[in-house]
């Protein structure tokens, strides 16, 4: 079943230097329960695409539909995790996670058990009453993911969710996300410039062109992910696919500003 369907999406921005085309004819289909990642050079419009899916900004032309319904604005069927976390700094960890439950009308009595379970899941017991400014980047991102999971959206939209984290924390968070997705089988659309991350996590990687962005290539990632991180990363298969994707992104980046290179990592 097709969960997200995007047809011939166009978007232009008005900037100081006149109009800039961000997206020029994006087509995309994401199946129910699929994990799709969009990679591309910086400024290729991949975040714009995600924000349109989120309903935060409108497209100039083309259609976006979720389960056949056109997207008209933000909705709780699509949970969004931003690179900068976007936690409410005036709410504690527990209050941030509870927020979506309040807004989506989850009965009062059911809220606390959900919040407690999620805090345990993300390993932040003892930090329930801390404010975001007292947390590390990795902890903040855990809270951001937890508060999105709290109200159980069908779709997760992840905008470079681990981009602001150090390498080690990023890997831990990737593993947590992978386990989470394997357990819940939510439909995930992630945007990143990290090719390793894209290949490690997703079932399908889409490569976007230099601005104005279009999806120019896609790679089904058929790798075994049941074991530990090393078992996946250190395989011939993973490296072959990773290199293919990396070359495809590099080719796109090379067409524009040569200083924009995708990062492939060193594993």
């Amino acid at each position, binding site marked *: 079943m097709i969960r997200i369907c995007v047809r011939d999406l166009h978007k232009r921005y008005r900037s100081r230097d006149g109009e800039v085309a961000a997206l020029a004819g994006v087509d995309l289909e994401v199946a129910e329960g699929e994990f799709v990642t969009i990679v591309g050079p910086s400024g290729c419009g991949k975040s714009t695409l995600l*924000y349109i899916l989120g*309903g*935060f900004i409108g497209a100039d032309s083309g259609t976006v539909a979720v389960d056949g319904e056109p997207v008209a604005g933000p909705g709780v069927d699509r949970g969004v995790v931003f690179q900068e976390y976007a936690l409410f700094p005036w*709410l504690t960890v527990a209050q941030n996670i509870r927020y979506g439950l309040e*807004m989506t009308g989850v009965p009062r009595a059911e809220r606390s058990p959900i919040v407690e379970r999620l805090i345990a899941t993300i390993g932040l017991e003892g930090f329930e009453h801390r*404010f975001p400014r007292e947390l590390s980047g990795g902890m903040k991102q855990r809270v951001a993911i937890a508060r999105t999971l709290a109200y159980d959206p069908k779709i997760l939209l992840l905008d470079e969710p681990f981009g602001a984290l150090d390498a080690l924390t990023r890997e831990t968070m990737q593993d947590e996300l992978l386990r989470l997705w394997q357990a819940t089988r939510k439909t995930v659309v992630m945007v990143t410039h990290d090719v390793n991350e894209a290949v490690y996590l997703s079932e399908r990687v889409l490569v976007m062109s230099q601005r104005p962005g279009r999806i120019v290539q896609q790679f089904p990632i058929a790798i075994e992910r049941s074991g530990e991180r090393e078992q996946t990363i250190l395989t011939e298969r993973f490296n072959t696919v990773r290199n293919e994707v990396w070359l495809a992104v590099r080719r796109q980046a090379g067409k524009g500003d040569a200083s924009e290179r995708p990062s492939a990592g060193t594993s």
Partner: protein
Amino acid sequence: MSDPPDGLERPSERAGPWRRGIRRSLPVAILLLVWQLAVGSDLIDRTFLPPVDAVVAALWEMARSGEIWLNLAVSIWRAFTGLAIGSLLGVAIGLAMATSRRADGFFGPLVAITYSLPKSSLVPLFILWFGIGDVTDILTVVLACLLPVIVSTYHGVQAVPALLVWSARAMGTPRHTVLWRVLLPGALLSILTGVRIALGFCFVLTISAEMIAAKTGIGKLIFLYGENGAYAHMFAGLTAVVIVAYGADRALLAAMRHLLRWHDSVHAAHAHAR
């Protein structure tokens, strides 16, 4: 909650509360000492400036007779009522201006032209309209408190990151609920800073309005004693206002620290808010 290890706090804040208190009251003590010595040594004529001990004696006398309490209560009531009304209106107007182009177009020019107008200059007009008493006094205070709160609310709301609004909307927050669940808390530091400025204005304006448009109040008392040349009593009235205004400011500051304990800049605010 731990202090950020950024060394932002000034040396005086690392010292204990006692040393801090002494350090802060030292300039006031020096001022009083110089004042007392200057008058005591006949450097300044007593008819122009009463000595400190005479002011203290006058304050004590007025406190015992009850004269000061009644007038102080009336003035505090006027100042705080004006502050409350002005702040609430200011937050509402500032919020409207920051979120609606139409409201901005309507209130923007009005705020711009009235911002630098001394509000006390309107008192004679208000006397004509509302006569002498509470309405005139409070209205003057409302107007004076309104503008700083409008401006600080407006800028505070505009500075709330769009990402916070987006994530609130994504989590199912209705558009109008975003106002009080996201924009107001996000702008709280700025709003309360505006209220703190307004708190200063509310006493200034209460006293100046009472001087010309009241039968009671500390302003009236100061005015009467000044007219009659009872300068020690006049200074006593002034002193009472200074004490109340200072106490109110400290109380608001303490409230701000608590309400904004989540804020990144709360420690920086400690350093500036003195």
